[in-house]
């Protein structure tokens, strides 16, 4: 009796959440099996696997998948490595520590679109960007970052956006590190590097796992930075899977193929998650 009342009371939220997930998913599955283009909305017969075949054989598909993975891994490595180093650097008290911490964390509060515009126009612009000015003052040719190194430019922007998140997590974790352990190691003859290597890094294993997992969720879906800066180009050099799906659905009006792409993105996310959880997930359970 008591149990059925609990279930009854929980039912509305559970049903709502389930519908929230099931309806878009089933609609995507439905669209991926029919012919559906915004040019010809009346033509929507069943086509089986044709949309998937079309999306996968698209020359852009392979580069979109590899761009997605390169973007993901690069940003993960940059944010975790730099994040650990910077957090360790600002862990010891120094003059202006609070200010430096706020400055390091602040990029996280900037929305991705604005972030991309700042990098595009203020930093990487070949005519009046700061990078161009630096190269010119050193006597080099300015580089047109967005067209010469499009994917790298995106990686820099996204890393700048996500580094603060990593620092925020690591700084908090470092504060919970036991000082007596460090002192014990010091008396055991450990140098600063030894303490970092044998005590701090193991202590950070769990926060690193958390950062990697949370960032992965968001990095697989990077979109605004690409739309605002490179537009996926030149060619498909900076197109990731998310951007390719957008391209298919809203630039080429092929909603059906885009739905098939969306389902492939779900599969890719699951594959990545599988490997990631095997690699870092064991730190979470201990």
């Amino acid at each position, binding site marked *: 009796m008591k149990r059925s009342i609990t279930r009854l009371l929980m039912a509305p939220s559970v049903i709502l959440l389930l519908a929230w997930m099931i309806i878009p998913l089933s609609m995507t599955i439905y669209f991926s099996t029919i012919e559906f283009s915004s040019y010809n909305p009346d033509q929507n017969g069943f086509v089986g696997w044709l949309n998937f075949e079309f999306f996968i054989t698209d020359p852009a598909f392979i580069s979109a998948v590899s761009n997605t993975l390169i973007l993901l891994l690069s940003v993960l490595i940059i944010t975790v490595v730099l994040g650990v180093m910077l957090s360790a650097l600002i862990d010891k008290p120094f003059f202006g520590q609070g200010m430096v911490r706020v400055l390091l964390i602040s990029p996280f509060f900037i929305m991705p679109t604005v972030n991309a515009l700042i990098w595009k126009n203020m930093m990487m612009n070949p005519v009046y960007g700061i990078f161009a000015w630096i190269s010119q003052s050193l006597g080099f040719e300015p580089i047109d970052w967005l067209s010469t190194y499009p994917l790298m430019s995106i990686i820099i922007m996204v890393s700048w956006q996500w580094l603060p998140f990593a620092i925020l997590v690591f700084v908090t974790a470092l504060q919970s590190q*036991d000082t*007596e*352990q460090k*002192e*014990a*190691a*010091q*008396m*055991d*003859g*450990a140098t600063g590097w*030894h303490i970092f290597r*044998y*005590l701090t890094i*193991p*202590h950070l*294993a769990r926060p690193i796992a958390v950062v990697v997992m949370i960032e992965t969720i968001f990095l697989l879906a990077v979109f605004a930075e690409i739309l605002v800066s490179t537009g996926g180009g030149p060619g498909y050099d900076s197109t990731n899977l998310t951007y390719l799906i957008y391209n298919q659905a809203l630039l080429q009006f092929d909603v059906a193929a885009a739905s098939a792409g969306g389902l492939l993105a779900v599969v890719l996310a699951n594959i990545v998650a599988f490997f990631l959880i095997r690699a870092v997930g064991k730190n979470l359970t201990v």
Partner: protein
Amino acid sequence: MSYLTITDLQKHYDNYHALRGINLSITEGEFVVFVGPSGCGKSTLLRTIAGLESSTGGTIELDGRDITELASSKRDLAMVFQSYALYPHMTVADNLSFALRLAKVSDAEIQEKVRSVSASLQLDALLERKPKELSGGQRQRVAIGRAIVRQPKVFLFDEPLSNLDAALRVQMRLELARLHKKLGTTMIYVTHDQVEAMTLADRVVILNAGQIEQVGTPLELYRKPNSRFVAEFIGTPKMNLIPADKITHKADELVFDLFGHTIHFPAKRIKGTQPDSTIVGIRPEHLSLVEEGGDLTGRIELVEHLGSEAYAHIQLLNDQTIIVKAAARLELKDGQEVHIKVDVDEIILFDDNNKVISVIPEEA
């Protein structure tokens, strides 16, 4: 000969003078306990010896070498921390061998040392466990093992037993005493528990407000405290302190007037000038309950029965409560009026500055 010599050691924090000129010399193989109330500077002193805090004046010499400015890793000291500070990601074996591995000792030698230390501390079966899989007492033993394995010149203990439960604490205290006998290494031990200090120490250093109050063997401190602070700090239950209202000087004796009661004290026992005022200190075991006569009278407020003995809390006529040690079999009732006899030979007198008034011991 002095092994560890501390000369005029000072430690200033931003606006706090933590160590105010510490002078101390410790001989090789001695077990020295620093004891004092919290905030007296005992942990700061230990951490300064360890090199975890830098001193702001004075010198520390160990075995003929000035180590005042030396990094703690170069001082050849090992420390056991209050929280044990085991490395949580390493097994017991790795915890024990960490310092040796850093010192690039050969694998065979490391194995041999870890084996012998773990055997002597009964850690053999636990070598592959992580610290969080150990009980408090086991962690404590690993922390001690980690210090022993390095064979340092001096062991430093920072309140190592305060995280253990009472039964285990007594057991570990014994193990530490045995360990000191076996190794014969110099040990410095910080505690706020005067029972630990009394039972473990060869010599006890009592600290108060950043200064050494008195140094001596446990019995010396108990029987001949230098000051009221030491007298009150050492001994459970505390020493009774009764201020004298007036001192009458007679030909060969002093008569202390304690709110109507009098205590006669032979004047010839006082060294130096005869005091005009005093506080009379007397330990509970030097007071006894008598049928009649006696030096003081009071009313029993409460009796603590400990089985082998009893402590009677007695309210005197001036409302002050003193504690008297009594035989357990005495039938004492709350509110009962009792007479107390004072063992005048054991009285300790303090002057107005809370310093002890020197007396010549009673001739035997």
